[in-house]
């Protein structure tokens, strides 16, 4: 890559972001503008905001790298995300969230569930969970973006971290959700263009769709023995049923991330930014295509990189990215290496901006969520003055930035790598049953919601610290107390905590609701109106 051209490209990109952020600031005059972007957002902005907030740099390089290791069985994550997260999410969950949210006047996800169940405890608990867990997830995204910036434009990592975080915080602080959505729409469009070009060029490079898949199928005997032992049967095959790899792909990736998207606070709030269901249906078009092209393309290209590198270098993808010190593959480098070696130079420039855009759009949504949770849901929810509310939210953005930056500097890379899965899983286990019951089941009571939320959180955290080896070994609490990484045995040590915590949360939410006093009919009928629900 030409360094001068690269710098100019990055500067132009930041210039566009600065302009769009400024535009968001100019269009922000009320607290509703800051929290919900005014509540009358264009469908394309809503869709791109939703999609690009969901997809970070680690999603593209992380899933791509994982797919290069584990193969196309990871496409189940794409299928779950498109069908469940987007189609069902928008048409069923989103439409109901929007309607109910407008009826009760909610401007954040904790406020929405707090008012639905008439419980300040729910609102505060959700806010605390968000404020504690989200900075970890945000730090992971920030580090991903900064590491990328460090390598791409050759600047010091600490400088990259600060510059990256400050730029994003600047437009979130000034323009709130409007700045977030305007910049996300641009970033999402860039990401969509890049991933479309990437899949087209990759299939063309390998002789077409069928030839590419066939080349991959023909190299099943090249799977490393260590992966074969885990159940790997080839990059175009599902892993062996019940094997370690099967549990990892299904439980962590598919269930954890696929189902987890439905209860992400920074995503669910987007449903309340549009005026009517018509906008949600229109947003479905770009959203459905966007998620396919992000996660699907990353998975397919990551897997196919094995076929490319085998043809050109005589090695599988993992062998191309061996860390010289650790002597193990750094799979996060597979997608960047593939693009720089196999793709035309123009794609490399566009992809560089794409990875930057992915990180910034996700981080912006995260900073905004931390700010609204801290300033509006937790601190002084009774404040009515718009000027005061916007000021408090801006202070909260600064607080969120400082905490996240601190974590970005001090936390080890191993914790950062699992932060995304933890946040998604913890939110799903804690909020999803209460959220869906609140939308569709008139019989759901506040006691049921609280009980399910607490049980989901507690089981998830215990499993994460004492059973699921991948995470327990990193936190080290189990080892400190008991001298072992996990208190359980196979398969529990390789099953993601969400597999236990989410069903437990569902069962408790339902049972406790059924044994506690139903909510007053007038209140329920007012909330649900004439919409069909479970009685």
């Amino acid at each position, binding site marked *: 890559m030409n360094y001068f051209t690269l710098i100019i490209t990055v500067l132009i990109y930041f210039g566009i972001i600065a302009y769009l952020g400024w535009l968001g600031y100019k269009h922000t005059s009320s607290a509703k503008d800051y929290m919900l972007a005014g509540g009358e957002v264009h469908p394309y902005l809503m869709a791109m905001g939703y999609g690009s907030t969901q997809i970070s740099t680690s999603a593209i390089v992380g899933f791509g790298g994982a797919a290069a290791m584990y193969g196309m069985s990871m496409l189940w994550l794409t299928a779950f995300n498109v069908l469940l997260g987007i*189609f069902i999410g928008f048409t069923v969950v989103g439409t109901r969230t929007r309607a109910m949210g407008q009826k009760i006047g909610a401007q954040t996800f904790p406020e929405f569930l707090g008012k639905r169940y008439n419980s300040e405890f729910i609102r505060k608990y959700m806010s605390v969970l968000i404020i504690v867990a989200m900075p970890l997830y945000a730090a992971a995204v920030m580090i991903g973006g900064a590491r990328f910036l460090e390598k791409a434009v050759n600047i010091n990592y600490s400088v990259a971290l600060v510059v990256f975080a400050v730029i994003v915080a600047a437009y979130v602080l000034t323009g709130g959700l409007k700045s977030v959505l305007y910049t996300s729409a641009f970033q999402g469009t860039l990401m969509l263009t890049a991933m479309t070009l990437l899949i087209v060029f990759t299939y063309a490079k390998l002789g077409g769709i069928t030839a590419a898949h066939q080349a991959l199928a023909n190299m099943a005997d090249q799977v490393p023995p260590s992966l074969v032992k885990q159940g790997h049967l080839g990059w175009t*095959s599902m892993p062996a049923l019940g094997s370690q790899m099967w549990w990892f792909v299904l439980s962590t990736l598919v269930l954890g991330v696929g189902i987890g998207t439905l209860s992400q606070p920074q995503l669910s709030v987007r449903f309340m930014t549009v005026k009517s*269901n018509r906008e949600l*249906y229109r947003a*479905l*078009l770009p959203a459905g295509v966007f998620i396919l092209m992000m996660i*699907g393309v990353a998975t397919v290209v990551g897997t196919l990189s094995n076929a490319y590198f085998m043809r050109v270098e005589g090695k599988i993808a993992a062998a191309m990215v061996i860390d010289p010190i650790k002597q193990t593959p750094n799979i996060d480098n597979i997608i960047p290496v593939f693009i720089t070696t196999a793709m035309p130079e123009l794609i490399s420039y566009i992809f560089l901006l794409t990875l930057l855009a992915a990180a910034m759009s996700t981080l912006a949504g995260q900073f905004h969520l931390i700010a609204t949770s801290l300033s509006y849901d937790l601190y002084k929810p009774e404040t009515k003055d718009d000027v005061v509310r916007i000021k408090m939210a801006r202070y909260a953005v600064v607080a969120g930035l400082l905490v996240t930056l601190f974590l970005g500097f001090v936390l080890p890379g191993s914790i950062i790598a699992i932060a995304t899965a933890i946040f998604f899983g913890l939110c799903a286990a804690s909020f999803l049953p209460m959220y869906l019951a609140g939308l569709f089941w008139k019989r759901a009571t506040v006691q049921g919601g609280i009980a399910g939320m607490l049980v989901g959180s507690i089981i998830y955290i215990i499993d994460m610290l004492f059973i699921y080896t991948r995470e327990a070994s990193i936190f080290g609490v189990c080892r400190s107390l008991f001298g072992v990484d996990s208190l359980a045995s196979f398969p529990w040590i390789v099953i993601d905590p969400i597999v236990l915590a989410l069903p437990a949360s569902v069962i408790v939410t339902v049972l406790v609701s059924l044994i506690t006093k139903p909510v007053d009919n007038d209140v329920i009928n007012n909330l649900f109106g004439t919409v069909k629900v479970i009685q």
Partner: protein
Amino acid sequence: MLGLDNTGVMLAYLLSVAGSILCVIYGIAKWNSTE
């Protein structure tokens, strides 16, 4: 089909693409619906 022999992988591939097409078709069908 498409060079993918494994049923599980083929299903995931087709469902991913079909899901996206479903979003497009449904969005067009409900373009002016407020229900």
